[in-house]
């Protein structure tokens, strides 16, 4: 049933999500909502010296949104912010590909399981919910750092 959409990897992340539960310390916390279905996620990000030190989250939503947020944390934690943003880009591109893109496992790891989701426009937003929240939080964290630095400098 629903094989193309619900890959085993997705179901695994859904049943046993990674890095779930809000943790301290963090720099920025954001709350994103998917208005069409009511799915919500709260994401906390800690950026230290240009590295994504930690990402934690809590939320409610469908298997796709929960699993993709879990996969996201695996992919960005410990990476340079730039690198993590590149991964984000790659995932975004995959989701917008309408099933036409062969995902790069080296870049997206478990994220390739979501290739099939891109054929279901109504679910693409679910898959992106956590990723968009992370990007938003990270951008704020980086901006704050720049601000702090410039304050110190002045």
């Amino acid at each position, binding site marked *: *049933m629903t094989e193309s959409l619900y890959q085993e990897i997705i179901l695994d992340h859904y049943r046993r999500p990674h890095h779930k539960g809000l943790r301290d310390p963090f720099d920025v916390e954001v709350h994103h909502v998917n208005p069409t279905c009511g799915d919500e996620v709260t994401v906390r990000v800690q950026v230290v010296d240009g590295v994504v030190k930690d990402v934690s989250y809590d939320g409610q939503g469908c298997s796709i949104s929960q699993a993709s947020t879990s996969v996201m944390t695996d992919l960005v934690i410990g990476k340079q912010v730039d690198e993590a943003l590149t991964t984000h880009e790659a995932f975004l591109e995959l989701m917008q590909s309408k099933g036409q893109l062969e995902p790069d496992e080296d870049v997206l790891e478990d994220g390739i399981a979501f290739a099939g989701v891109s054929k*279901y426009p109504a679910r693409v937003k679910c898959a992106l919910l956590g990723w968009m929240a992370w990007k938003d939080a990270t951008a704020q964290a980086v901006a704050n750092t720049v601000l702090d630095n410039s304050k110190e400098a002045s």
Partner: protein
Amino acid sequence: MTLREVASVAALDVEAVRKDFPVLSREVHGKPLVYLDNASSSHKPTPVLDAEREFVEQHYSNVHRGVHTLSQEATDTYENARTTVASFIGGQHDELVFTKNVTEAINLVAYSFGNPGSPVMLGPGDEIAVTEMEHHSNLVPWQMLAERTGATLRWLGLTDDGRLDLSDLDEVVNERTKLFAFTHVSNILGTENPVDVLVGRAREVGAYTLVDGAQSVPHQPVDVVALGVDFFAFTGHKMVGPTGVGALWGRTELLNAMPPFMGGGSMIEVVQMTGSTYAPAPERFEAGTPVISQAIALAAACDYLTELGLDNIKQHEIALTARLLDGLRSLDGASVLGPDTTEMRGSAVSFVVDGVHPHDVGQSLDDLGIAVRVGHHCAAPVCRRYGVPATARASSYLYNTEAEIDVLLEAILQVQAFWGVR
């Protein structure tokens, strides 16, 4: 099932009806399509499509403005459609305004009531009343009107079993209330509201009433005069008609006392650069080229439903709804949002499956060929009220069968198995 229900199922020849809807013989993921998303939109039968096409291919022209033959034929057909649609809900020709959907019909009233010259001048201290079970289309326009005018929006809450909480009625609808807008039948809970009680209270305090009939008109006989309302709005695509057409019914003297909503061609009387005067209703509210062929198709849809008999359709749906409610009740780990009997109830049944998000329920059912709607069904406050992020909703109509209800019930078991909650 009662005897009356058995008889009525026979009164509607569902197999014959199904032949009028080509999509019903489609397969989805290799399974026969079971279309249970009718509260969102219904399919359109061949006679309706043919009526529109015949008009467009042989008699089409713009209306109201010409003396040539096609223009006269088009005008006649369009105005006859108005009569048909108006009488379908017990109204008169001049009382019916064609809009593009029920949402526009409601916005029409909300904007007209806020425009200069309105029969009620809303301002701070005035109130507009709605209910907590409204579709966003009968909520957001009033929020916006309140914001524009400074009036206050109030609402009737809901009981745990999915009904309006009438204990607050006298407080929510009070001397300051200028307009009370509520739905006839809820698209998410299925609840049919006691229009007589609500209109009765509105009359006591002199408030105008607007009833959103989007979910009642397709499914049961409606008589706006008997209901005693001031405005009644409904939409074509849920009643075997096309998209792009809805209607606002209103009392003639009220419509004629209201300022226009949109400005443009056909709604005017005398236009000068310095200012214009407006035509009487219904033209006053139909700016620009109307939804001509859609209105004609909607009239054909009314004829189609009338021929089958709204009573028969209603009885058929009661039978299907009873079967679905019974089935869900006897199913572990599933529960219904809204009334759990067919008493004062439409055919939309919202349910949740414990441990499986509604989106996953919907997606998994689709794999089995079953189309249900998932989400907040444009009634987010209802989900919030009952503490769920969303629901799955199965809603039957004239072409659904008991066998399809059974397919759905059986499929829910499979969904539970797949998601490991059984």
